[in-house]
């Protein structure tokens, strides 16, 4: 009886662990922080994608996805969309539509898994583990610094000026034409670089 209970609990824990991967938990935590920040739309993005990943892991939904375009096509599309993003008014509906379209496209391109071998000759498991730990430490440190700045800046506009978040620091830069061009170029090129990762060989 007790053995049966332990077996059932172990099976339930394994199923739960399989359904909610670490990155899904990160998305849920981020979505909840966006709610705390007073950004329900941003929260919805993270929580909806987390829900989609859980549903996918549970076999409840099936997203077909599409094949990823060749690099030349991606770069050409980035050039066109980047130009439109620069020309369109910031925070406007056109930028919203373009960004939404980019998001949906990237989701469809990135959804299919690949069976390619991702190991690189000469790079050991230990080197990968070390890199993962170091990058995670830097990422966590930066996130904690950002959260602390955000929280300290909530008290008043003067406090926000003394403890600016990354958004407060970069917003004036992105508000200039040159700043927007640089930001959009780096953002689109960064997205293309990320799309090409994890695809196997």
């Amino acid at each position: 009886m007790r053995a049966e209970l332990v077996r059932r609990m172990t099976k339930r824990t394994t199923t739960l662990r399989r359904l909610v991967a670490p990155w899904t938990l990160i998305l849920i935590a981020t979505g909840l922080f966006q709610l705390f920040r007073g950004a329900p739309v941003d929260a919805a993005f993270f929580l909806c994608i987390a829900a989609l990943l859980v549903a996918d892991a549970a076999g409840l939904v099936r997203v077909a996805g599409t094949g990823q375009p060749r690099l030349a096509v991606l770069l050409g599309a980035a050039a066109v969309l980047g130009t439109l993003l620069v020309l369109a008014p910031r925070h406007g509906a056109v930028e919203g539509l373009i960004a939404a379209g980019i998001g949906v496209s990237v989701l469809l391109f990135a959804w299919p898994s690949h069976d390619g071998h991702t190991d690189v000759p000469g790079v050991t498991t230990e080197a990968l583990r070390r890199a993962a730990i170091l990058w995670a430490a830097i990422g966590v440190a930066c996130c904690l610094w950002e959260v602390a700045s955000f929280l300290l800046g909530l008290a008043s506009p003067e406090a926000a000026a003394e403890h600016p978040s990354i958004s407060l620091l970069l917003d004036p830069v992105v508000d200039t034409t040159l700043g927007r061009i640089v930001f959009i170029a780096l953002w689109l090129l960064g997205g293309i670089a990320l799309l090409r990762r994890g695809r196997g060989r």
Partner: protein
Amino acid sequence: MRAITIAGFLLCLAMAVTLEVLARREANRIAPLATLLDRVMATRSARIGILLFWWWLGWHFLVGQTV
């Protein structure tokens, strides 16, 4: 305090750059970021999660109200 806050962000950026430079010099000790991402993003949840964060950066600064 403002200078200290900005210095903190710059320190994070400097650490990231330093780590990547070290990794490219000694890939057998610390894997370069691209190699790490290849391994991490082989799983769907990581791949979609990382791309969502990338996309949200663009949304946040171009579409949403940042300030």
